[in-house]
């Protein structure tokens, strides 16, 4: 099976994606990751205003069969969270790169993103 890996963003080995917007970094998990997890039933992440640290766990995604930590791609402050996931966690399965996003971070250091995997590098990892 092949999975979509959009080239407009960067990735962590732990299957999170990071998309640079005008002033924030939006974070979610890849199509491959949601497929591995199966039906997502619960997502837990910090509240707006809390800090996260690059490459450290910031939350949890639970499917029916598994619990998995979520890792932050960059350090910074959480400026938005996807509240829709509380009532509709299946958005993570249905649209992992779009409506299934999880948090937005105002990064401490904009260049931190460059250290992450490119789409090509990430794709090589999940083949």
């Amino acid at each position, binding site marked *: *099976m092949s999975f979509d890996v959009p080239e407009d963003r960067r990735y962590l080995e732990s299957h999170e994606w990071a998309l640079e917007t005008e002033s924030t970094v939006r974070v979610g998990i890849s199509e491959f990751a949601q497929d591995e997890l*199966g*039906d997502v*039933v*619960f997502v*837990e992440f910090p509240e707006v205003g809390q800090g996260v640290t690059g490459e450290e766990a910031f939350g*949890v995604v*639970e*499917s*029916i*069969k598994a*619990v998995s930590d979520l890792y932050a791609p960059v350090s910074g402050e959480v400026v938005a969270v996807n509240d829709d996931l*509380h009532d509709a966690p299946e958005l993570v*399965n249905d649209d992992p790169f779009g409506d299934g996003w999880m948090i937005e971070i105002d990064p401490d250091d904009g260049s931190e993103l460059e250290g992450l995997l490119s789409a090509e590098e990430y794709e090589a990892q999940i083949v």
Partner: protein
Amino acid sequence: MPLETPPLRGLHDEYGAKFTEFGGWDMPVEFDSIREEHEAVREGVGIFDVSHMGQIHVTGPDATTLMNRLTTNDVGRLEVGDSQYAAITDEEGIVLDDTIVYRLPDHQEQPTYLFVPNAGNDEWTHERWVEHKNEWGLEATVDNRTDEYAMFALQGPEAVSLAADVAEAGLSDRRRFESGHTTVAGVECLAARTGYTGEDGFEFLVPWDAAETVWSAVDCQPCGLGARDTLRIEAGLLLAGQDFDPEDDPRTPYEAGIGFVVSLETEFVGRDALERVDAEGVEERLVGIQLIDRGVPRHGYDVTNADGRVIGTVTSGTMSPTLGKPIGFAYVPVEYAEPGTTLRVVVRGQSKKARVETIPFIETV
């Protein structure tokens, strides 16, 4: 140790199923999505490959006595074609495994049984039967036939009519827990009106080599162990090694909520201990729980009272696909076991409000 593989490992892999290790077997956990598979079984019909389940065959003049002495239920009540749920207990009355005992047609005019221990428990149950048979000087033959049979479970409100369509004997006339031979796509198999989902349906024992013929003859949603788990939790059914475990969480049938399988009128290993437990009552027992706060209860999570004192442990838990609510089982002291009692479950260090519920969580057959 290499994993045992079910006969249809390759076929399931071609389908695109995901696999998991379970009881020493490499089994399909998910064919499409646990939610879809779960819904198919609750609303229509689904088929499970449960070839990891054990099959121990017991026959001979003393087969009934041997079965009666090693399982808690009253095997003497079984006529040919009947089956019953039972526990296998040790001298202390601790549940070692739970099983279904089938009375098969007599073999060479001798009473004959098949019992189905859980995955990975076939070898030691076989040894246990052989050792006790020898110790007690009973005349019976005990065979481990786990590698001779595939086992498929056809489950759901439409399962009986689908089974009747594909099989050549009049399956829809069978009672719950009734078993007998039938033919599916020319393959002779044993069909029992049993299951592990809370729904109606049949379980088929199929010769290993003919597994694909039978599986392919039944056209419905294939389901993995993931859906089997969510279905059995909703139905209030126990999972060996998780809801009771002779090593890590030793429990009597009374604590585990399956006291109905204990027939104290029969002589069996563990009977005297269980008679005392029955008379004195239990200190803890298995209850259903539902999380009121957001979160999912999982095996091993602490259960506390309102003051935060740890009083028990979650043994099974999931997000119920049918109810859309986080549910599970836990052992708690009996004073906390009343439905409606407020408890707390510790999820990753956070205390979440929970409530004791009656099980099963859904209506079952």
